[in-house]
């Protein structure tokens, strides 16, 4: 069970991610950047736990839906935001954009927007860990849609055959991008996503993405399993689809998350009742913490501090210049 300090820490992390993503949508709506992007609203608990439990020397691969992973791992919101806005001060100097944020100094390998990219590159990370023999592990985070790609099957097969220290994390958010005409389609003939890795002889566990305790114990178990040399581990994290995650671009349908809804000081709009009452991991942990002594005021204080941090980040990003255009010629080769 998580102690109270950890819970507060995770809550802060999760709220930072939430505020970051909300801010991003607002910036997009006002034309502050262009192009495709994806937000991880609803998936913050996974990011908070997963990124915290890995050691410094471990490796991570992730996807187009990477912002939460970056922030939870400790990337500053200022340089993450600047990157997404294509600025010079961005964490990848403007080359990456939203899809490809990466921080090798924190263990991240390449962040791939190609479905099936992160899972298969992760096998490579784990191969390197095993070759080094230093008990390090790699974690590959990817969406449920990735399991439609053949390379993902190949990755499971290979990781199993070679007993690689790889934590597969399938963030099943019940959403693949190209849902036809806005409705969800069934793209897996396999109904339980753990069945495929299980068939390949991989240890698996399915866990709700809402519950910090369960996430904590599952990720701890999986990482230990891999570190001990017992081969890969596959975690399916089930989260409900955030209603704004509806088409190619996210829509701010649920508005800015008001923590007062968790404190009973603000009524929840009918149309978003299920989301805020049942599915939102941020409000869920907020409700728990509100029951602690002085919990509600502390929650709001943290929100104020984070909101302020985000204001600073927005200012930082917007005031950072764009890269000199000629820099496009750099970094083709190391």
């Amino acid at each position, binding site marked *: 069970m998580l102690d109270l300090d950890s819970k507060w820490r995770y809550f802060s992390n999760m709220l930072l991610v939430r505020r970051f993503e909300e801010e991003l949508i607002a910036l997009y709506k006002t034309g502050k950047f262009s192009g495709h992007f994806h937000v991880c609203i609803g998936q913050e608990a996974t990011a908070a736990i997963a990124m915290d439990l890995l050691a410094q020397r471990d490796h991570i691969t992730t996807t187009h839906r990477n912002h939460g992973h970056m922030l939870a791992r400790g990337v500053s919101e200022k340089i993450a935001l600047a990157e997404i806005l294509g600025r010079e001060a961005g964490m990848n100097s403007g080359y990456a954009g939203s899809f490809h944020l990466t921080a090798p100094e924190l263990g991240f390998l390449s962040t791939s927007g190609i479905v099936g990219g992160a899972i298969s590159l992760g096998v490579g990370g784990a191969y390197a860990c095993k070759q080094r023999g230093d008990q390090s592990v790699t974690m590959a985070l990817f969406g449920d849609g*990735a399991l439609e790609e*053949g390379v993902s099957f190949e990755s499971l097969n290979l990781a199993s055959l070679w007993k690689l220290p790889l934590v597969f994390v399938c963030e099943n958010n019940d959403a693949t991008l190209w849902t036809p005409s806005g409705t969800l389609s069934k793209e897996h003939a396999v109904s339980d996503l753990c069945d495929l890795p299980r068939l390949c002889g991989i240890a698996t566990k399915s866990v709700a993405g809402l519950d910090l305790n369960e996430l904590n114990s599952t990720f701890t178990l999986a990482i230990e399993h891999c570190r001990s040399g017992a081969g890969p581990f596959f975690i399916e994290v089930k989260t409900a689809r955030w209603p704004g995650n509806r088409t190619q671009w996210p829509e701010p349908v649920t508005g800015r998350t008001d923590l007062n809804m968790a404190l009973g000081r603000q009524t929840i709009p009918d149309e978003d009742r299920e989301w805020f009452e049942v599915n939102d991991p941020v409000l869920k942990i907020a409700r728990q913490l509100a029951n602690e002594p002085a919990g509600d005021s502390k929650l709001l204080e943290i929100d104020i501090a984070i909101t302020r941090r985000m204001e600073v980040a927005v200012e930082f990003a917007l005031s950072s210049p764009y890269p000199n255009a000629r820099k496009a010629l750099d970094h083709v080769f190391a």
Partner: protein
Amino acid sequence: MTIQKMSYAEAVLTALNDSMIADDSVSLIGRPFSLGPTRVLAKKLKEKFPTRVCEPPTSEAANAAVGAGAAMAGARPFVDLGTGAFSFLAFSQIVNEAAVCNYMSGGKLRAPVVYHVNHGVRGAGAPQHSHDMHAYVWNTPGLQVILPATPNDAYGLVRSALTNPNPTFIMSHFKQATMMGDVELGVSIPFGKADVKRTGTDVTIIAVSLMVHAALEAAEQLATRGISAEVVDVRSLSPLDEDTLLQSIEKTGRVIVVDESPLHGGVSSGIAGVLADRGFKYLKAPIRRVGRPNTPVPASGPMEEYLVPGPQHILEAVASIL
């Protein structure tokens, strides 16, 4: 003949619709195109032909194989593979299977599958969603490689692809999706014919896909300076209409080749190579290639724009050889 004004993306879907009406064996394997105005049209297509618009999982290799195999079995699938870079996942099916099956069978087996992607530097596509695909597929004998630049060409070339007996790889540049133009409905455009989009006498500008528009703009500006530029739209890289290109340089003696793919191994170099061999006798000056520098495409706007060839680069190239 009916002429209708529509966007490039609408022209692609209209051609598909008209081909589906004309031939029961035509079907779409793909998601509704993510090109603004066509979402509605794609939905209509699905309503009209519920069993002939099939939305596959995210498994490009199998999806492309389904197209190839179905075509071998007599169907005429139009397989939309989405963004150009996703077709790399299907390269074996396209290059190793569809392209060679007629040859490999001694002419006994046809695979008239049509593959379509949206490609090119699109604005914030970053390195993985900005690939120009045509240099990658061009060296594949047996595969028809088609790049329409206008709504009318898109319509006419898609109609051709869906009656032609060979496999085809069609690329639509992202930035063309919303371009408007008149379309001659019901009219197919044969493959293997370059199109002289503007006639001129002083210099030839050979261009591919989106770069045709940059070339036309440059030609317009050259005209104001008294320079008469001919703009030739390649349209079909395979079969390649070498004759039309050569005829133009025979007339002008000077040529610029403009293409968005990176210069090394790119299409501007490849076409220049053909001309330097077969058309050398006509040349009064170097063949200038206007292409992308040899770099991936960065996410940030100003860096991205810096890389993309435009009218200014063409004007500079022309100035250097006149």
